[in-house]
């Protein structure tokens, strides 16, 4: 038996003991996870610095802050999320209990990504634990330092059998994917996403795929361009552009192109100084392979801002490209790096057309003062999410479902959505064996009269609260009539 097979078998055995069922146990594990993040802050920050060149504050801001919030929310709300959820009934079931019962799925697999190695691996884990599952965690080997720290330290805080960390590369992942899971949660690119879904198909395993795409950013010519550019610059160059929801490219009218360029140039200087290479808060490309990939993407376009590189450090300066068209090299795939192309379009109609000619992205960004234009973009495009007048921040609103559509993925998570994603919502109808007489109209032999009653009782919906109000009204009217008769004659 391979190591991966053993790990999954152990996790399943641990799940079957039922120890993840009690809410207190789940909360205990979540609290331990919180301890892990607070006590090992330095280890986590160090690993991120070595993987992506991100500063300590950057690590906290973009990795652990979000996870802490998720854990605290889950602990606070778990009782509410896990409670049976009552639903409406019909006349025949009016004295029965009808509810949806959230249950764990079993053993789930969480495959993380390398760009926010802690956030995208631990956030789903919070949902999996809260929903009462066992979870096999497979961090990305590309962010190898984070993977190592996760493999060494996480078992010191979480139940080793229920939440094992399996580190490794492609062969280990393939071996894991041969095993049977009750849900697979994958964050990464579409190519591997398809392979994960195909592997899951063998076991009829449902999947959540958090993929990527080219997230367009349309700047309306009449908006506050300096403010728009500040927000876009920040959103683009965080983590050196290696963010699934980074604005991938800009669409704007030719008349504002030079203003946009100027403003972005100013912001880059303000945020990352004249020499981002020496600035602590500007990161690096994850590895040589991606560095080379990004260099190829620049071919055929003109560098308008930045463009400096240092291969030995995997450094690419915050760069803006112009003279880019829909067919340019840089438009052929998700950039996932600090290159920001600007494509000119003649207004919002052409922008919408441009967006709709391509795969549905993870986010559509629109900067405008005109609500009508914003509403049009919402109505006439589709994407995982839409954010107007800023970048990235929708990610922090846990009540919003975070996920893609079409090529950018399926399923969603964050907050309660994570809990639901990793749960089976089981329909429950609790009846008694009494009142058997009522059932007789559905039994054979079938007569026209029985059919009439059955059609009425079995299938018509009754709005229970409206019924209660009507009954109350009837009672009050009866009381009023009584009072009138008795006292006011």
């Amino acid at each position, binding site marked *: 038996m391979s190591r991966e097979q053993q790990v999954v078998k152990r996790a399943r055995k641990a799940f079957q003991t039922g120890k993840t069922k009690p809410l207190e146990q789940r909360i205990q594990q979540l609290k331990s996870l919180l301890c892990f993040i607070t006590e090992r802050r330095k280890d986590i920050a160090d690993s991120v610095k070595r993987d992506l060149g991100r500063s300590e504050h950057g690590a906290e801001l973009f990795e652990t802050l979000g996870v802490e919030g998720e854990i605290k929310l889950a602990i606070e709300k778990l009782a509410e999320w896990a409670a049976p959820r009552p639903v409406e009934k019909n006349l025949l079931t009016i004295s029965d209990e009808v509810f949806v019962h959230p249950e764990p799925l079993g053993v789930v697999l969480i495959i993380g990504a390398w760009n926010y190695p802690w956030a995208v691996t631990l956030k789903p884990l919070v949902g999996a634990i809260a929903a009462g599952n066992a979870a096999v965690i497979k961090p990305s080997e590309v962010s190898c330092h984070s993977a190592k720290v996760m493999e060494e330290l996480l078992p010191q805080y979480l139940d080793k059998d229920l939440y094992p960390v399996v580190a490794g590369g492609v062969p280990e992942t393939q071996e894991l994917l041969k095993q049977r899971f009750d849900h697979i949660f994958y964050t990464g690119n579409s190519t591997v996403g398809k392979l994960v879904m195909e592997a899951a198909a063998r076991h009829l395993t449902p999947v959540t795929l958090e993929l990527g795409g080219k997230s367009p950013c349309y700047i309306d010519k009449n908006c506050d361009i300096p403010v728009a550019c500040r927000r876009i610059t920040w959103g683009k160059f965080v983590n050196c552009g290696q963010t699934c929801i980074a604005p991938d490219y800009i669409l704007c009218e030719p008349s504002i192109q030079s203003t946009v360029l100027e403003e972005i140039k100013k912001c880059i200087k303000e945020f990352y100084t004249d020499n981002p290479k020496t600035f602590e808060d500007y990161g690096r490309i994850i590895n040589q392979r991606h560095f080379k990939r990004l260099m190829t993407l620049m071919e055929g376009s003109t560098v308008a801002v930045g463009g400096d590189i240092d291969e030995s450090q995997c450094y690419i300066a915050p760069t803006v490209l112009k003279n880019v068209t829909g067919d340019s090299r840089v438009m052929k795939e998700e950039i996932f790096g600090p290159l920001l192309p600007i494509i000119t379009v003649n207004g919002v109609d052409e922008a919408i057309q441009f967006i709709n000619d391509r795969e549905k992205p993870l986010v559509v960004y629109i900067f405008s003062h005109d609500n009508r234009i914003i509403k049009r973009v919402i109505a006439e495009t589709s994407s995982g999410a839409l954010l107007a007048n800023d970048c990235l921040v929708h990610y922090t609103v846990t009540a919003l479902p975070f996920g893609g559509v079409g090529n950018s993925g399926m399923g969603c998570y964050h907050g309660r959505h994570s809990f639901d994603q990793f749960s*089976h919502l089981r*329909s429950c109808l609790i009846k008694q064996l009494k009142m058997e007489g009522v059932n007789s109209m559905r039994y054979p*032999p079938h007569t026209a009269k029985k059919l009439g009653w059955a059609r009425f009782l079995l299938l018509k919906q009754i709005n229970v609260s409206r019924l209660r109000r009507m009954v109350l009204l009837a009672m009050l009217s009866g009381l009023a009539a009584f009072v009138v008769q008795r006292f006011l004659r």
Partner: protein
Amino acid sequence: MDAQKKIVDRLRTSFRSGVTVPEQFRRTQLNNLIEMLKDSEELILDALHKDLAKPKFEAILSEIDIVTNELYYAIANLSSWMQQEYVSKNLATKLDECFVKREPFGVVLIIGAWNYPLQLLLLPMIGAICAGNCVVLKPSEVSAATEAVLAELIPKYLSQDCFAVVCGGAEETKALLQNRFDHIFYTGSQTVARSILQAASIHLTPVTLELGGKCPCLIYGGVNTTSAARRLVWAKFFNAGQSCVAPDYVLCSAATRDLLLPEIQKALEDFYGADCKKSPDFSRIVSPRHWCRLMELLGKTSGKVVIGGENDQKERYIAPTVVVDVAEDDVLMAEEIFGPILPIITVESLEKSIDFVNSKEKPLALYVFSDNSSVVRAVLESTSSGGFCSNDGIIHMTLPGLPFGGVGASGFGSYHGRWGFETFSHRRACMLRGWALERLNGLRYPPYTEEKLGWLRWTASPKTSCTLM
């Protein structure tokens, strides 16, 4: 293959034009479906009778009415389902508009099954229409008469640019699946489900699978055996046992079995008379192939047939049959029965029964008959299944408030009522920020400092939002 591609392309063009988005369009299609069912009730009942010898009563309740009811329910609730859903925010985003907008996926494919050929195709279709999609319908070719009727009626009542029916068998389905869809909804078997998932993975198409399984029926604790037997018999032999949520087999003690058998016999006589074959209220097996499959099971079982067993190949008739002394590895326990054969397995204790159920794949439905509520609760808490119903069978799926779907080997995803609308919708997170308070944004821009971080932690915390505002 070409003809099918043309259909999918035509629907995609229609979808891109935005015609299915307005609420009025969706309402019109739903109303037209109501008309279709009213106008063509006899035609449909005829076809169902040809396919399955479905008694008129069963066909009306489980095919026509359940769909009509869902249509009325959808029409009544469509506006509220389509509303933007505003969500709670944190302090940093208090002044922003945050909502979830439900959007159609695009062109979806719905593959039906033969046992409830109308319901299993039209109920999901209602969800898809409500959500604003274009739909390709692929009825099961096994229920050929209903397939033909649907192929004729749908284009008459629904917009032909947005809805199409594709007929055919395995080859045609395979060809259809080579096209790209934005969601695939499949009802049927696990084997076919695997190949559908494989095909879907090529295009990253999300899928809903409504599969089957062996739905166990546990009878423990004190039980009013008369009522239990009647409900069990009704649920099991409805549509001659060809329901994905029919109780597949019974688990009970020997004593309970001995009390139950005469009650089952009595209920069968009450419902179908002394000779079930003569009753107009009992269905037939859908095809010679399935009849042979079931007869083979009866032939190979090492259990004892105590009730029924009569059959007629020409009529595809198998009498309501009960088999006792069935072992765990009996041929009747190897696959979903999907016919009028009810094995009773003797397991003395409830705990062992629960272990038995848990050692098998998760079923679509799980039933318990008991007067003792702690028995019901114990089974509910210690098992998992698509749906759960105590002291009755099948009936839980008539409630549109409950999601109808499986888990594990019985499928994933769900529908009925609002759940169908949600299944065929993409929940798009929308956030509209203002232009003011750019200074506050300064907290997040580099250079990063400890102080800025402190402020950000405070504003992003979910707790502060409820205490301050």
